[in-house]
């Protein structure tokens, strides 16, 4: 099967000066190689600062890489001119963690989902409205709600709007960067189920960034563990959870198990 997205030796460096005026270089990403297959879910886990979000931005072509190569559906896209990059970018969309800051508070739900269509000039105004309405309905929002602004919605509903918006350009790959972290448990469950449905009906591929190992293991086919800008371990979920090889993976699992024992408890009979 052909890979959907392939990264080879990707590096990302930031230069600058530290607090005492010494020139420093930060390696946000260091020699990252991985392959993502269509219709699969890859969970990207790791401690804060390990480079997960930076990797996501590079995958989505929102940040340039310093080194390495990247292919999308077999075509190398590393040094594409901007016009062609835009076309590829519409295939890879992102949903962010904070539903408050990622949605323009002055636009209605409908306008927010229409915006990508307007920017990429897809269809006329009526077609755009229709498509936006359909997408919002697909994610469980309908009726008068569509003309309300983000402040009128709950956190879970705002993430639904963000997901509908990310689907507007019919991407093949959706990158969710801690998209569930700010939500209540019962709402997380609802959004997870929505994501499963969408993956099946729209043949989507997901990259799911999270520090919730239990959720990562539940959602994903494979897990990639990052530390200090490198992918230190990667494998099928069962293998990573039951037989972690790298110390960072072991630490993450230990932390998750330490505060995760609630889910292990026998369920009550009543």
């Amino acid at each position: 099967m052909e890979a959907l997205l392939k990264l080879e030796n990707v590096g990302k460096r930031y230069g600058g000066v530290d607090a005492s005026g010494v020139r420093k270089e930060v390696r946000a990403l260091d020699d990252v190689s991985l392959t993502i297959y269509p219709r699969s879910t890859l969970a990207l886990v790791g401690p804060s600062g390990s480079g997960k979000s930076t990797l996501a931005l590079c995958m989505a072509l929102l940040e340039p890489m310093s080194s390495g190569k990247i292919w999308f559906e077999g075509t190398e896209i590393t040094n594409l001119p901007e016009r062609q990059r835009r076309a590829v970018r519409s295939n890879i969309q992102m949903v962010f963690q904070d539903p408050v800051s990622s949605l323009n508070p002055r636009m209605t739900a409908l306008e927010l989902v229409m915006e990508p269509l307007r920017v990429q000039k897809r269809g006329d105004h009526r077609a755009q409205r229709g498509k936006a309405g359909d997408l919002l309905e697909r994610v469980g929002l309908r009726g008068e709600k569509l003309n309300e602004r983000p402040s009128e919605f709950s956190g879970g509903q705002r993430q639904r709007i963000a997901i509908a918006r990310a689907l507007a350009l019919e991407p093949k790959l959706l990158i969710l960067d801690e998209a569930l972290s700010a939500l209540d448990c019962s709402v997380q469950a609802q959004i997870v189920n929505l994501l499963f449905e969408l993956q099946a009906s729209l043949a989507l591929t997901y990259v799911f960034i999270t520090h919730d190992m239990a959720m990562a293991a539940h959602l994903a086919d494979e897990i990639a563990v990052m530390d200090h800008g490198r992918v230190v371990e990667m494998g099928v979920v069962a293998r990573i959870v039951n037989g972690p090889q790298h110390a960072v993976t072991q630490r993450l699992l230990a932390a998750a198990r330490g505060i995760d024992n609630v889910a292990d408890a026998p369920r009550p009979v009543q």
Partner: protein
Amino acid sequence: MEKWAGKDLFQGYGMTPLLEVQDLHVSYGAASGKSGVALAGVSLRLLAGETLGVLGESGSGKSTLAAALLRILPANGIVECGAVRFDGRELLQCDAREMEKIRGGRMALIFQEPSQALHPALRVRQQVCDVLAAHTDLSRAALRERTGRVLAAVFPTETERIARSYPHELSGGQRARVLIAQAICCEPALIVADEPTASLDAETQMEILQLFRRLREEFKLALIWITHNPALLAGFADRVMILYAGRVAEVGPTAEVLFSPRHPYTQALLRCLPPGLGKGYVGRKTKLAVIPGVAPVTLRDAGRCVFEARCSDRMDACVSGEPELVCVAGKQFVSCVKYAG
């Protein structure tokens, strides 16, 4: 009127509670932002040195509870009725000056967003010292000494470097620890922590819980730990209270509430969690259990069980009145018609 008799709850304790909240009702007037009822009759008791976990989702009233206890509700926040007794004093009747002494001194609050709660232009040492200076009459030398001790307790390694740092030079976990240092420096009897670790990764959350275990032992702290994440409370809190629509759904020893929950809401909530990472884990990309519907707008007098519309165990009796909080086993209390009478 008290919802349950003191002796049922504290059989064998024979101690006066450090904090006692009776039938607290809080609502917000129709200014911009929140409006409506937030708490509709919350009662709780806390002994000295005890940790109570308050578990609730958005809209349950948990943050209002924290603000009400420390009397820092916004201008449109109204305590409609109820009593809060702390350290033998009626808090709701203290004037502003008395509250200023208690707040930070005997009772402290830790907020959720460490990056927003710290002064960006003051070094860590100064920020902790300022809190001490505001609440004590210590000499400069004594202030320095005490600040050093508190920082060493919270940052056992790299104390000096952290003390000299500005907040932007610290990680999220380190900033959270600075807030904790500010909260404990006056050796309060009670700390109310409102989602203090929500923005931190799992490992850092564990470290902060470990830190609190050490500190509450060392400083004999009572803790009210407010969160929407049940996993943080197992093995950490002594008792857990479940809030739903501004009311107490269930309260009892942690193991009972989290592993043998009685209230249908608690049961439904815990069922929503993804499976634990136990031995022989097999990842299944299966749908998670959900609680149908949405949480209701909190009303003062609902006239029925507030969870009824979403409850899989609902009966006709559920719409005839609000169930009272009753003792079901040992020290576990539930407000559900199934256990009434």
